């Protein structure tokens, strides 16, 4: 039953998305990109792929950031096409995907406005996927003087207002009118990560309500994403020179779901160095292996050799997590009639953009041998 209703509502969009799926860069195209010697060559090779004439109007010396921005715009364009034609509940699902980027945009706009940057400059740097029309009002927000204005803008006009609400209520239980001081003093990064945690939990609850195949597939993906977040935050704060107060804050950034929740996160909460993390992850073989592979990167070496960073064999956690995420997203495409493919497509496109940026950087730096670090998407499996 579910299947036939699904097709009548969302069949067209799923078909379009599967069309997009075949537009990912293949291994031959990546090989061609590695042979480019300048960014101009790269651009012309990309024009032969599905990216087409997306960079036609750019003036001659192209920067890597322009390439990234144009790729994101193309993806946003395709995403909005799908979103415009979606019915409920797919529409809300797609909104959730966009909200992740909206959080990033809002944070960078707040930061820019606090530093009195010009609105045009700020708006040109936002992620096009997370665009919403009320963004402009943030840039004209007068943080110093009118608290009510700030509150109104942040809570009501943005689609992510509910997450702000949660943040404000946990951090300032009594003095809601000190929002502007809060904005000025607090750490932007903590705000961003708390908002993301709230978003993730909200998303998870939404798909649980949807039920069915979507819940099965997306539930697995989101739980893994939540765990990745926990691991990231832990590893990035434990060994760094960041202050100890951060270590208390980080516990607030752990989402309240996931395979590591609740015992794992509880144990990780108490970790304060490599050995404790080691012990905490013992019950989760997949994450344990992950940690084993990348912990060399995080150890404070006694014999600190500078080549640690140039050596490609030492991977950081992010490299490994990207690989895992790509695998998860690829498997999402194996099943029909669920919304997971939309999320998976967005994530895979992001990874592809990252790959292109990495290749461009390596071409600029003349280090073509390092291009192999990119993560291939939908690599054809050689069956044994």
């Amino acid at each position, binding site marked *: 039953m579910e299947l036939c209703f699904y097709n009548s509502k969302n069949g067209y969009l799923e078909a379009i998305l599967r069309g997009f799926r075949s537009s990912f860069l293949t291994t031959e195209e990546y090989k061609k990109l590695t042979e480019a010697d300048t960014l101009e060559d790269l651009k012309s090779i990309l024009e032969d792929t599905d990216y087409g004439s997306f960079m036609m109007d750019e003036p001659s010396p192209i920067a890597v950031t322009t390439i990234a921005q144009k790729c994101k715009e193309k993806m946003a364009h395709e995403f909005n096409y799908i979103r415009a034609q979606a019915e409920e509940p797919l529409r809300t699902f797609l909104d959730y995907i966009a909200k992740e980027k909206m959080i990033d945009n809002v944070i960078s706009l707040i930061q820019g406005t606090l530093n009195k940057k010009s609105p045009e400059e700020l708006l040109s740097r936002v992620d096009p996927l997370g665009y919403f029309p009320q963004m402009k009002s943030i840039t004209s927000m007068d943080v110093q003087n009118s608290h009510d204005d700030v509150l109104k803008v942040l809570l009501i006009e943005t689609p992510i207002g509910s997450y702000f609400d949660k943040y404000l209520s946990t951090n300032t239980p009594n003095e809601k009118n000190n929002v502007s001081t809060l904005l000025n003093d607090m750490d932007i990064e903590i705000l961003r990560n708390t908002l993301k945690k709230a978003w993730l939990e909200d998303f998870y609850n939404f798909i649980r309500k949807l039920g069915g195949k979507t819940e099965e597939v997306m539930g697995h993906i989101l739980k893994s994403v939540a765990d990745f977040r926990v691991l990231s935050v832990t590893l990035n704060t434990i060994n760094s020179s960041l202050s100890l107060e951060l270590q208390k804050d980080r516990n607030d950034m752990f989402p309240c779901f996931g395979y590591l929740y609740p015992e794992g996160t509880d144990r990780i909460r108490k970790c304060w160095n490599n050995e404790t993390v080691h012990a905490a992850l013992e019950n989760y073989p997949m994450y344990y292996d992950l940690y084993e592979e990348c912990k060399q990167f995080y150890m404070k070496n006694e014999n600190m050799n500078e080549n640690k*960073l140039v050596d490609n064999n030492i991977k*950081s956690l992010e490299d490994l997590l990207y690989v895992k995420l790509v695998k998860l997203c690829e498997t999402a495409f194996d099943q029909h009639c669920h919304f997971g493919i939309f999320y998976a497509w967005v994530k895979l496109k992001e990874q592809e953009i990252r790959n292109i940026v990495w290749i461009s950087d390596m071409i600029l730096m003349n280090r073509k041998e390092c291009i192999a670090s990119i993560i291939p998407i939908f690599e054809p499996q050689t069956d044994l």
Partner: protein
Amino acid sequence: MGALDDSTPVPSRITLQLMKQRKKSAFQGYSLLKKKSDALFIHFREVLKDVVKTKTKVGEEMRNASFSLAKAVWAAGDFKGQIIEGIKRPVVTLSLFTNNVAGVKLPIFQVHIDPTVDVLGNLGVASGGQVINNTRENYLQCLNMLVKLASMQVAFFSLDEEIKMTNRRVNALNNIVLPRLDGGINYIIKELDEIEREEFYRLKKIKEKKLEKSDDFMAEEAVDEFDQNGYKRQDDYNSIQKDNDIIF
């Protein structure tokens, strides 16, 4: 006897003394400056070697640093804007000291890192924080090396100037002042010798002339004796007595 013109000194013993003294001090100055020039040159060669070494290292380091930046962008997305927005005070400051090398004041730059300013903050706490940290360390290393290179290059140029100047003075002393002084001294000695010879000759001549005169006189008297004896003898006797120069 006066000087013929300004460049030829007055030939007297006093001026000879003066010139000898000047020559001595000129020679001393020459040897001191030569020593200074040699010391500067040794330093110069050292700095040159260091500069070449550091330049190649800086090239390597910058390469590594940009590579780690690319890695950080891979791990954490484009965080440049965030960092620029988040900075309120400068972290790295330079201070200037002077170092005295063989009399030359060379400036040295020193890097001060303000540890109270936290540039990175909590950047990348959810993704890539550690990688960003590594990038920062790489770039700091690069910066230190560049500052050292800057000090060395400034030292290089100042030493170069100083060496050129010192060498000019050394050469001037050696090729112009000393020979001139030598020439002057030789001239004075020559002149003095000549004066002495002249004096000597003059005395000799006078003596000769006097002898001649007295011989002539004696000869005349002898002739007169044959002719008349009387009063001429008296006359001669008187005239002989009047000549005080002839001492019996």
